[in-house]
């Protein structure tokens, strides 16, 4: 088994944190994403959609999509549980994971792709006006998450789950690469961020 990886990229980081929480070690192969290594003809044979993370399984098949890979690893290594135990928990955690991914991370990602010159060679055409609007959306979404954290220790409820990993990685990536601001008035976010950042897995 091997994982195609790149240190600065957010999706592989989500997976690395997930694996660190589980105590799973998988050999990493670094890809020069900013030089287009995730879109070469050879790599597209492994992942036709391009990009990382990509897990190469022992039987030679490939698994893409960070959350799909997480689900695979959750099935193989159920403890500690990160994606829910019973049907109700699985649905609630998935709901929060998707909210973090599609609303928060999604708008941050679109802001990054359209405003940061570093990704221009990979993306092609950028729409700075659209990117700026997406950043504003991300800021608003952060305020919604702050309100929703009231009375909850973690994003999806009383315990740390994959939803916290997605939100943490999205916010940190947004701060570093898309101009996202963490308003100190968002006290619940600040409290939560401090807690999830100080877990050993956050260094992954």
């Amino acid at each position: 088994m091997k994982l195609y990886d790149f240190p600065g990229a957010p999706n592989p980081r989500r997976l690395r944190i997930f694996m660190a929480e589980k105590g799973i070690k998988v050999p990493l192969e670094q890809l020069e994403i900013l030089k287009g290594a995730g879109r070469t003809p050879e790599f597209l044979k492994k992942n036709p959609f391009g990009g990382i993370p990509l897990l190469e399984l022992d039987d030679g098949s490939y698994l893409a999509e960070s959350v799909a890979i997480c689900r695979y690893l959750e099935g193989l290594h159920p403890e500690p549980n990160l994606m829910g135990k019973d049907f109700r928990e699985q649905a609630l955690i998935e709901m929060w994971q998707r909210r973090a991914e599609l609303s928060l991370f999604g708008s941050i990602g679109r802001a990054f792709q359209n405003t940061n010159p570093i990704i221009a060679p990979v993306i092609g055409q950028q729409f700075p006006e659209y990117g700026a609007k997406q950043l504003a959306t991300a800021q608003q979404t952060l305020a919604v998450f702050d309100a929703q954290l009231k009375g909850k220790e973690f994003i999806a409820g009383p315990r740390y789950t994959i939803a916290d990993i997605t939100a943490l990685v999205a916010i940190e990536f947004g701060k570093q690469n898309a101009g996202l601001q963490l308003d100190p008035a968002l006290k619940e976010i600040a409290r939560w961020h401090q807690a999830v950042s100080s877990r050993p897995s956050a260094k992954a």
Partner: protein
Amino acid sequence: MKLYEFTQAPNPRRVRVFLAEKGVSVPTVQVNIGAAENRKPEFLKINPMGGLPVLELDDGTHIAESVAICRYFEVLHPEPNLMGKDAKEQAVVEMWNRRMEFEVLGMAAGAFRNTSDFFKGRIPQVREYGEVCHAAVIKRLEWLDQELANREFIAGNRYTIADITALIGIDFGRTTQIRIQPEQKNLARWHAAVSARPSAKA
């Protein structure tokens, strides 16, 4: 239990088709996106993100996000299996579901959101970006047609949630004149098959 939804929107349709495949009936309540009912304070209490569909459980809990709702029902009603049996199958189905979600449905939605009069004045629209999304769907469908030469369904040899997502994504593409082309025979074969299932009318 009830499902807040809107018949014309794509994400609610994903859940309706899923429930039909499972033979599960849930009463529905219409929330009119066209009249921005989903952005009013009463609905934001139900889903602070404002999206549809939302499942309301008997104890008052609300579950939003169509795939989370599907997962709830998948575990509660395991047959027929739509999201994978063992760890590997679940991951493969999820991978394909996500690919269809991001690159077909998501891009078709991006095209619609940024070019349609439906949202004019209500959300920030960037027409040029919508056109990039539109072109991306068309290119992805060319690729999908080739993929479907070698297998019957999106994620493998049986119908799964990935087929539901792709069906709804392609059908939603019609709102920006995206069509399966005459030469895309594999895609047309697959589309006819999934559309002929009774669930497709949900």
